């Protein structure tokens, strides 16, 4: 290196040091566990959150009446110690644990629970997920301005420690809903004084295993153990940090250098590398409640003909897509509801069979694809650094249908929001789609395609399907219910073929099992923060 260059670089370095020490950079001791969480949480307010990144953090701050067992993803007692189900499943009485306190010391009572749930329904909160409580008596009417008197809603505190919830009809997955982060218990006083910016308050009262220490957007999120949590004895770490990382290779580099201990977002594992990474001992995959599929717009001919839809579904070589493009070992999907979802029986789907497809297409009036109009496949760009999996699948599908059925498909890639607008407005022929379940029950997938569901987005309305789903959800016997749901799902993916399921998601976690323990891959993809232990850090501290 020549001398002037060295002097220049040194000067630059001194400038940088001056600038960074000028207050823009803060160094804190390393947290016990550092986790790459994917995109930045948009919010930590249970009433606002909708994304998985938020869902993974919020339960550590705010707990609900039940919580998820990190191993099995079934609801177990949380703030509520136990509950009674009465009136044929339409009334729940929850008994809170004695002596519950907020992290700031105030007692946590049944009133807080009632406040939190009514807040979720309150029109002024404008919560995306208010509908989770529409099953409660007068919940929907209160939420959509029908009634204004909150005391008419079927959520009441019977005394300091008991909450009674009255439902419109039995809800087989109600306890799952109670464990959902959306329904967690939030601090009334702070919210009433600070409005939308209540999460900036420090100390922030929390009802979960951790308290919020630092939350800097696009920078880091740091949690500290809450000693007043009812189960604090079983919280095995004292600080946990979440980093938002936008680029998969950056996440991997940080992991390799030991800056982070865990990567637990599937978008941050580069899919091109999956077949290499898969064989490493620190790679952990588990079934996850999500499905990648293709929607048909059933209002656009010729896709209003079920035979055409079936023909296209039969001609897709799903195995090639999974093995060559996705490469993470994901299972091929022939149904909408992923295997492993509780209380689910899978119907027979359409097993790929190009010959049968060609025959059906001919029956529909398009022998060898003759006369079939050129149609479009709508998909969104993977902005933000994720692997461009949508474009790759689109390219594969285009070629498969050209070769197998002799029909021509154009690709129409749109920026995400434009894509959503097009899908919502039924301005497409075929569209790339995916769905992640909210709770561990088939209903979280199947109710999408009810005629009046805003997420249907296919134009498909089927009275028989609607009837089956409604009947199933009134059915108290689990076996009978899953039978009804199976029939409905069969209608969706086989007889009517409104969607072409391509594959079921897997969840991925990257961590060294020798150092990190207590992290679980459950079907909801939500491992509990409180149980994650970093053995290496503990050793360091002891020394």
């Amino acid at each position, binding site marked *: 290196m020549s001398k002037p260059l060295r002097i220049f670089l040194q000067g630059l370095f001194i400038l940088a040091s001056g600038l960074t020490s000028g207050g823009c950079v803060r160094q804190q001791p390393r947290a016990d566990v550092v986790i790459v969480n994917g995109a930045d949480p948009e919010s930590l307010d249970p009433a606002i959150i909708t994304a998985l990144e938020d869902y993974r953090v919020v339960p550590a701050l705010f707990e609900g009446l039940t919580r998820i067992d990190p191993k099995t993803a079934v609801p177990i007692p949380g703030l509520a110690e136990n509950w009674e189900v009465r009136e044929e499943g339409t009334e729940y009485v929850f008994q809170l644990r004695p002596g519950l306190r907020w992290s700031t010391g105030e007692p946590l009572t049944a009133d807080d629970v009632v406040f939190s749930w009514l807040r979720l329904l309150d029109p*002024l909160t404008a919560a995306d997920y*208010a509908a989770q409580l529409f099953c409660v008596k007068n919940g929907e009417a209160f939420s959509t301005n029908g009634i204004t008197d909150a005391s008419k809603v079927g959520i009441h505190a019977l005394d300091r420690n008991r909450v009674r919830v009255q439902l419109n009809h039995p809800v087989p997955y109600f306890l799952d809903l109670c464990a959902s982060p959306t329904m967690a218990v939030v601090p009334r006083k702070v919210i009433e004084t600070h409005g939308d910016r209540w999460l900036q308050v420090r100390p922030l009262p929390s009802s979960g295993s951790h308290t919020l220490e630092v939350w800097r*957007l*696009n920078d880091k999120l740091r949690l500290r153990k809450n000693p007043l949590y009812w189960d604090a004895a079983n919280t095995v770490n004292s600080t946990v940090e979440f980093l938002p990382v936008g680029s998969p290779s950056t996440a991997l*580099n940080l992991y390799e*250098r030991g800056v982070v201990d865990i990567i637990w977002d599937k978008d941050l594992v580069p899919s091109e590398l999956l077949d290499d990474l898969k064989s490493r001992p620190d790679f952990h995959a588990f079934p996850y409640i999500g499905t990648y599929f293709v929607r048909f717009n059933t209002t656009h001919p010729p896709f209003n003909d079920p035979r055409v839809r079936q023909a296209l579904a039969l001609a897709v070589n799903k195995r090639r897509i999974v093995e060559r493009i996705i490469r993470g070992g994901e299972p091929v999907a022939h149904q909408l509801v992923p295997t492993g979802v509780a209380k689910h029986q899978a119907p027979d789907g359409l097993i790929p069979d190009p010959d049968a497809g060609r025959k059906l297409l001919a029956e529909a009036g398009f022998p060898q694809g003759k006369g079939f109009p050129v149609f479009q496949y709508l998909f969104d760009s993977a902005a933000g650094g994720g692997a461009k999996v949508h474009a790759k699948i689109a390219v594969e599908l285009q070629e498969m249908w050209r070769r197998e059925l002799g029909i021509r498909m154009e690709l129409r890639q749109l920026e995400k*929001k434009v894509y*959503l607008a097009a899908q919502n407005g039924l301005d497409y022929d075929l569209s790339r789609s995916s769905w992640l379940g909210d709770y561990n029950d088939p209903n979280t997938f199947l109710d999408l395609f009810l005629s009046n569901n*805003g997420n249907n987005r296919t134009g498909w309305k089927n009275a028989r399907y609607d009837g089956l789903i409604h009947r199933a959800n009134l059915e108290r016997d689990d076996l009978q219910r899953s039978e009804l749901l199976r029939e409905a799902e069969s209608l969706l993916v086989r007889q009517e073929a409104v969607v072409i399921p391509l594959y079921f998601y897997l969840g991925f976690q990257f961590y060294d099992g020798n150092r990190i323990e207590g992290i679980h891959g459950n079907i909801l993809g939500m491992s509990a923060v409180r149980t994650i232990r970093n053995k290496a850090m503990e050793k360091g501290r002891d020394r």
Partner: protein
Amino acid sequence: MYLVRRLMGMLPVMLGISFLAFMLVRLAPGGPFDHERRPASPEIERRIREKYHLDEPLLTQYGRYLSGLIRGDLGPSLKYRNHSVSDIVIQGLPVSMTLGLCAFVFALGVGLPSGFYSAAKQGGFGDYASSLIALSGVCVPAFVVGPLLVMEFAVRKKMFPVALFESPMHLVLPTVTLGLYFSGRVSRLLREGMIAVRNAEFVMAARAKGLSDISVLFRHVFRIGVLPVVSYSGPMLADLLTGSFVVENLFQIPGIGVFMVNSSLSRDYTMIVGLVLVYAVLLLVLNLLVDVAYRWLDPRVSYE
């Protein structure tokens, strides 16, 4: 006087920018609250829009925005609903500016000498070598340079951290990644600027007076030859100080460059307009400084 007039003139320009940006973002399809999953009832969607006044006529909304702006309130972010736009700018802007300033110094520190050298040795081997390097800086984008630098100096040689923003060492690779492209452009512009005036009459005159070659280059040729670089510095510095999406994303730097792009993608209306205003203030002030620097470097320039 000139300065005062220019500063006063900035107000209507800012107003124009805020108005255009405000209307433009609303022309784009899709809104801030359109997600992969819609709320189960249209009533909920309507209420969210109502809460953030998106249901009002556009001009009313703009009036509301302006009245907030006068009080220094940029409004709540529509994506990060627990944060206000000011929260995010105050948090991220200093970080982006730190990195941007380092990259600016790097760009000038590398670009000016190499351009000068090229111009001095015009047509010679040194010129070609230096031009080649400058051009590769210009046409190999940051999203290629960055990962390669990380691979070599952070992953393999472990000389620098791979990402994050915690110490001056963390700034080295991002600075180079960000600055390289600009240094290439600075170098090319300076070379051209100097060559263009090398044979101008006043340079000939200076040479005729018997000044040595090198001092003519420094005192006369450089002074005027650097003008294109000065012109370019305004937008360049404004770009650098407001962060770069690619570099901040790659090195996980908590600046506002990422928000510049992501707010557009997520249709975070208030955030887009807020960031545009921040950018515009920087750009206008810097362009003013450029014009002042112009007059200082080339006394014959007048703006009347």
